[in-house]
């Protein structure tokens, strides 16, 4: 213990080391604060929507209830869905800056509504956000370089290395202490702001613990790299240069190469094809006999097959039916689009198993619920909600029931996860 304290006194005397630790802590604090602010902003944006949405619906109800046409209600009323940020989202904002966390849907064809983009400035999205995951993945290893590049070679250059290694047992303990202290300081300067942020955000202990564990493991990896390079006996400057080169390869070059490879291996053009096919299906319905569409619809919803047939003129039940039939007709494309995205994600996980930077980033966005999986889960919720929405309107349309003021309030409400 005394030896450890002496080591600390020694470390404190080197100004560079202390400044580095404080700087890293400051960056970690800044990133946690920035993350918390952004998550708050997203929550506030969701909160602001609810009253606006209520006004919108009541304005539609105002004129629809004059005739009570259920089709008008189904056609004109948009229903809100939202995807609140998780309590850990502040640590890794992930894709939440480029994909919508608010989306309104109608009971019409979902496939032309589901993939709408968010409004954001692409020039701001291009460099990426300043969050804790960024500080950890990109910046923290550079601090390892600053603190560790001359740990061994510094002693050698000062002529003390031989003496240290000649002392049996003590030499090893010295290295354990010296490296251990620096490692603990690094992890603490990162993890303490993270834990504080987690407490402020009200996150689960397990999630915070997992992130702290990842932080400790990732730092351990870089300290190990530093130690191995330090053993090479190549001098302080060459050590630092080699560590920086390793950092460059592992966090910039190889992930970028992997991205090129994955993009080429799994092309995803299904999104556009799906949209085109869906449009054809929706508009083609006007050119085929109504009975054909209805027969197809009754295959999915036999419970309405006993209702009176349409007579070839416009009827809202036919309108909603062909929208649903169109959704069903592109289901294979939607599935393969989703499959393509999952495949890319899966390959990224494999890359993450080899490249710690990618692995840690992937794990963080997974824990934070800000990755592509979280996006797809939100889309699944929207799909489920859209089904409730359609089937909410069907009884009015197929039983020719008027849609009243009170019915507007009966519409299903989206349940976020």
């Amino acid at each position, binding site marked *: 213990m005394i030896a450890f304290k002496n080591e600390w006194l020694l470390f404190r005397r080197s100004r560079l080391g202390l400044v580095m630790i404080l700087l890293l802590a400051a960056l970690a604090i800044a990133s946690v604060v920035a993350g918390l602010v952004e998550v708050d902003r997203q929550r506030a944006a969701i909160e602001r*929507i609810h009253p606006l949405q209520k006004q919108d619906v009541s304005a539609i109800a105002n004129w629809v209830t004059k005739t009570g046409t259920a089709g008008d209600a189904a056609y004109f009323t948009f229903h809100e869905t939202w995807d609140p940020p998780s309590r850990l989202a502040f640590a890794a904002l992930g894709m939440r800056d480029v994909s919508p966390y*608010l989306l309104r849907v109608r009971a019409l064809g979902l496939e032309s509504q589901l993939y709408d983009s968010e409004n954001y400035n692409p020039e701001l999205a291009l460099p990426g*956000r300043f969050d804790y995951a960024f500080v950890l993945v990109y910046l923290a290893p550079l601090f390892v370089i600053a603190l560790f590049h001359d740990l061994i070679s510094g002693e050698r250059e000062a002529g003390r290395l031989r003496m240290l290694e000649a002392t049996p047992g003590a030499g090893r303990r010295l290295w354990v202490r010296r490296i251990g202290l620096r490692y603990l300081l690094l992890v603490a300067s990162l993890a303490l702001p993270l834990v504080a942020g987690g407490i402020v955000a009200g996150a689960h202990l397990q999630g915070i613990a997992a992130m702290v564990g990842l932080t400790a493991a990732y730092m351990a990896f870089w300290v190990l790299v530093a130690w191995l390079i330090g053993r090479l006996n190549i001098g302080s400057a060459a050590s630092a*240069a080699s560590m920086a080169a390793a950092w460059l390869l592992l966090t910039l070059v190889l992930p970028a190469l992997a991205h*090129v490879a994955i993009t080429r291996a799994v092309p995803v053009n299904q999104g556009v094809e799906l*949209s085109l096919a869906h449009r054809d299906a929706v*508009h083609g319905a006007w050119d085929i006999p109504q009975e054909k569409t209805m027969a197809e619809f009754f295959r999915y919803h036999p419970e309405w097959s006993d209702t009176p047939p349409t007579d070839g003129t416009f009827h809202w039940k036919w309108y909603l039916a062909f929208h649903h039939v169109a959704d069903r007709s592109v289901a294979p494309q939607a599935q393969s689009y989703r499959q393509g995205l999952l495949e890319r994600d899966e390959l*990224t996980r494999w890359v993450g198993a080899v490249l710690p930077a990618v692995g840690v*980033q992937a794990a963080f966005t997974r824990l934070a619920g800000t990755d*592509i999986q979280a996006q797809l889960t939100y889309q699944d919720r929207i799909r489920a909600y859209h089904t409730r929405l359609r089937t909410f309107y069907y009884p009015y349309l197929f039983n020719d029931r008027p849609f009243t003021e009170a019915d507007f309030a009966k519409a299903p409400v989206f349940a976020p996860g």
Partner: protein
Amino acid sequence: MSALTLIARDELWLMRRSRVSVIAAALLIVLVVIAGITSVAHQSNVADTRARLQAQVDEEFDNQPSRHPHRMVHFGHFIFRPLPPLAAFDPGIDAFTGNAMFLEGHRQNSANFGDVRQSSILVRFGQLTPAFVLQTLAPLLIIFLGYGAVARERGAGTLRQLFMQGVSAGTLIAGKLLALATVAALIAIPAMSVLIFVAAQPGAAAGPIALTAAGYLTYLALWSIIVVLVSASVARPRNALLALLGLWSVTVILLPRIAPDLAATAVPQPTRLETDLTLQRELRAMGDSHNPDDPVFAAFKQRVLRQYGVRRVEDLPVNYKGLLAVEGERMTSELFDRYASEGFARQARQSATMDAIGTLSPAVAMRRLSMAAAGTDLAGHARFLDQAEAYRYDLVQRLNRLQADAVSFEDDAAKSSDTAAEQRSRIDPHHWHAMPDFHFAPPEPGDLVRRASPAAVMLLLWLLVPALLLAPAARRLEGVRS
């Protein structure tokens, strides 16, 4: 041979002898080559795909059967954002915006299916393009090769020997700089070949390409000067390396990340949904087309009746419903345009804020110059959206006028309850052929150069600062002699 070239030759010889230096330089050159090949392939692949899809949807539009014109307003049209030739060098924000856009009546849809939402988290690690390699990685190589250039001589005591042989500190620094700049130029060769290849492509203009080339050469020269300057100003090579690594991390990695966050906080961006809801509210305040007694639409009706000198809409020589559609589209589009230009202005303010913070980093100025000259920046995207909206409005209004002229009011009014009237309200498909196709008008080369100029000036100012500091550094180095 002068002392200067001797020093430069000596330094280059040392670099060539160091296996690490050679491997590092070779790796970077290989990377630029890979980045160049994959970017060019990606660009032409994407451009082909979008052109093919565009041709396909244009044909589909023309081949639609007889329809009521309003059905075509909602059948709408897809357009695909073309990729400028220089995107092979710097795709800029291409992956971060949607590239397929659905155009229809009285709605402004978003551009969808951007790569950023389809590429897992890896896209956030940076894309391997010549621009990325030159902006981000090349400075690091220059640092690795040059941090010891002067500091090494000083640390090893050879500096004094040189001075005693009559070499001035200025000559020494100039020689080292010449050596480092030579290596930097070597790195630039493959990247410049990509630019020359792009210049040979159809649609490529010389001005922006020349500016891009000049910009990157300036940027590499700037880093060479910074490296030699720092190397001449500190006592030990290690300190030079740490200082340079620190400078690089802050200006190339940290600042470009912090700047967007600060810009987004300074100029908040409402969500698409919030904008949409406020827009709808304002639209309702303008007039309610569902309300037969609405004053705005009642006034419009009176105006139309007076203009044609008739008493009832049934007596009009044209289909009143079509006129109403034209008027409604005009009103909603006015509102769309206002919201869209507010949105553009807001995003332009955000980008300006980001650039202002970025003046602290030459990498930000370099990125701005590169994207602006390539036309792959926000302004380039805004240009596409502007033209898309103009095309959408024109297409929809042509169809609405067809409704007014080619569909009778009686049929239009009865089409929902009378199948024969519905059949008569469908007009011949030759009308769809007559609709113009979307052709993106690329920006003028002069326009691109003009937009990239402020960043070019910023880069030159950046070059000036360390260049002016070289002479004092040389004088201080002379002081080391005594």
